């Protein structure tokens, strides 16, 4: 097993919530795939904004307005830097879900018709699935899914067969939030672009956990959420290829995204502003900026290295638990998301018992009902790791799983 790439015991101290005690126990937070915890610097960046700079953006001729605007735009530059994107293509949205809806409504709905096809996969989060069903219903286009193999990976042969006419759009997760699988997005983009197919990537589980270089990935759209990457809730990002964004109509309309408004007609501001109607989450952007610099100063390579090493450690330990089935790949293709079931115990009961020992995991369908059906289960328990988790956390998880088995053994 490789050495852990960062000192998680020290990292823990940056996250005030990890000092909480839950049900009399030390909090072992293993639900970062749902929402990560926030370091003190992020919490403070948000309150500092409200204490020293709060004002509306892109409007003020006063000092606070200047401060707020600078902060907001510097958050955009910071995000662009993190994922190697052109800041003009960085649109602030609420979350991944809104980012994908934007692409679905302002791109796909506008361009597709009954002769076209959208492709996603069986492992998609509802947020990268339901918006495409809507577009299908609105435009009459087809919708097809890349199957998931028993090993929990995308069936690339099937993908290749689907990535040709009449497919016009592929939308796929970079990393699965249930299986932890890192999908070969670079390869999929290459296949798709060969056939002139536009590619949208759900990066919600990738950007927080590994270096992402959008210049290299070459996807046309890429969405992620601040709250899963040490940032506050309320802010997310859609990165779009500037040329496509320029061609697209706006999604939401209203203040701040216009150029000239008359009672008869309206022209739009330039990108990315065209896609940011109304007052944005400025406090959230301040927090996200701090989150990006926190992650950068830790180093995304180190974050990924730590996740991989801890994941290996946990997978090995889980493999020794009698009656435990884990779903998803192992090794380099797995990003610290461990879904499992214990035979004879419903995952909800697993979650509740673990909670009594201070161990927070998620139990349910994880917004992936079709994948649950594919795995042949109603739900799973899921422990997801992040930079502040330690081997001790994994050890506590294992002990608590022992308790579950004890309680539910006949």
């Amino acid at each position, binding site marked *: 097993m490789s050495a852990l790439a960062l000192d998680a015991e020290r990292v823990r101290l940056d996250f005030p919530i990890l000092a909480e005690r839950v049900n009399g126990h030390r909090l072992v937070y293993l639900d970062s795939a749902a929402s990560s915890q926030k370091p003190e610097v992020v919490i403070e960046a948000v309150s500092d904004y409200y204490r020293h700079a709060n004002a509306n953006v892109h409007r003020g001729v006063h000092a606070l307005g200047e401060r707020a605007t600078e902060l907001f735009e510097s958050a955009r530059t910071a995000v662009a830097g993190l994922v190697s994107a052109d800041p003009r293509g960085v649109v602030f949205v609420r979350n991944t879900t809104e980012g994908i809806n934007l692409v679905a409504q302002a791109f796909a709905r506008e361009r597709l018709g009954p002769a076209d096809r959208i492709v996603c996969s069986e492992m998609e989060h509802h947020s990268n699935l339901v918006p495409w069903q809507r577009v299908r219903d609105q435009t009459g286009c087809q919708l097809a899914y890349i199957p998931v193999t028993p090993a929990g990976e995308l069936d690339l042969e099937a993908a290749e067969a689907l990535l040709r006419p009449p497919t016009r759009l592929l939308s796929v997760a970079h990393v699965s939030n249930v299986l932890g699988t890192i999908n070969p997005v670079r390869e999929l983009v290459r296949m798709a672009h060969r056939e002139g197919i536009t590619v949208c990537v759900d990066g919600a589980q990738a950007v927080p956990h590994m270096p992402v270089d959008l210049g290299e990935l070459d996807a046309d759209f890429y969405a992620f959420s601040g709250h899963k990457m040490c940032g506050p809730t309320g802010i997310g990002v859609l990165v779009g290829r500037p040329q496509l964004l320029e061609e697209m109509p706006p999604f939401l309309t209203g203040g701040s995204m216009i150029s000239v408004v008359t009672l008869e007609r309206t022209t739009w501001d330039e990108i990315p502003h065209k896609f940011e109607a109304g007052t944005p989450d400025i406090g959230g952007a301040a927090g996200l900026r701090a989150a990006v610099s926190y992650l950068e100063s830790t180093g995304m390579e180190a974050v990924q290295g730590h996740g991989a090493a801890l994941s290996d450690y946990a997978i090995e330990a889980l493999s020794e638990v009698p009656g435990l089935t884990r779903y998803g790949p192992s090794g380099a293709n797995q990003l610290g998301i461990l879904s499992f079931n214990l035979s004879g115990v419903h995952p*909800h*009961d697993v979650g*509740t018992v673990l909670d*009594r020992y201070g161990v927070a995991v998620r139990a349910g369908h994880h917004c992936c009902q079709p994948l649950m059906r594919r795995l042949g289960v109603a739900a799973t328990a899921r422990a997801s790791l992040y930079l502040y988790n330690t081997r001790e956390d994994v050890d506590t998880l294992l002990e608590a799983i022992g308790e579950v088995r004890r309680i539910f053994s006949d």
Partner: protein
Amino acid sequence: MAQTEPVSLDDELFREIILDHYRHPRHRGLLDPADMASHGHNPLCGDEVDLSLRVRGGQVEGVGFEGQGCSISMASTSMMSEEIQGKSLEQAHELIGRFRAMLLEGQDPSSLAGIGDLEALSGVRRYASRVKCAMLPWTTLEAGLKQLEGGHEPAGD
């Protein structure tokens, strides 16, 4: 603002009585024919319950269910089935109300004392997400009864 609770939830949450119903559900298996069939589903966790009732002269003559879910939802279904068997529809409604009051409106669990094993579910109250599990069979029953009674009411009402 939320505070750490030093002492946790009911340590008895999974006490034997719940686990017993979970492992050995009463009234499992659907009735066919049935006078009432009702399907319940908790989208958050995938728990499902199918409930069937035979009703004669306003009395529940038979109860049967199928379902899949956690110990709480399954035990709750099993306990409920035991309790309504042989009761009048009116009594069933009243029981639904009492159970809901205990779980959702914070009523003292002793209001269910002596009604079979139901009081054992009171520990669930601390867990908003699990309350839905415990409630599932009851809302399913309520929906079914509504339909049954709607259908049996004289026309024009």
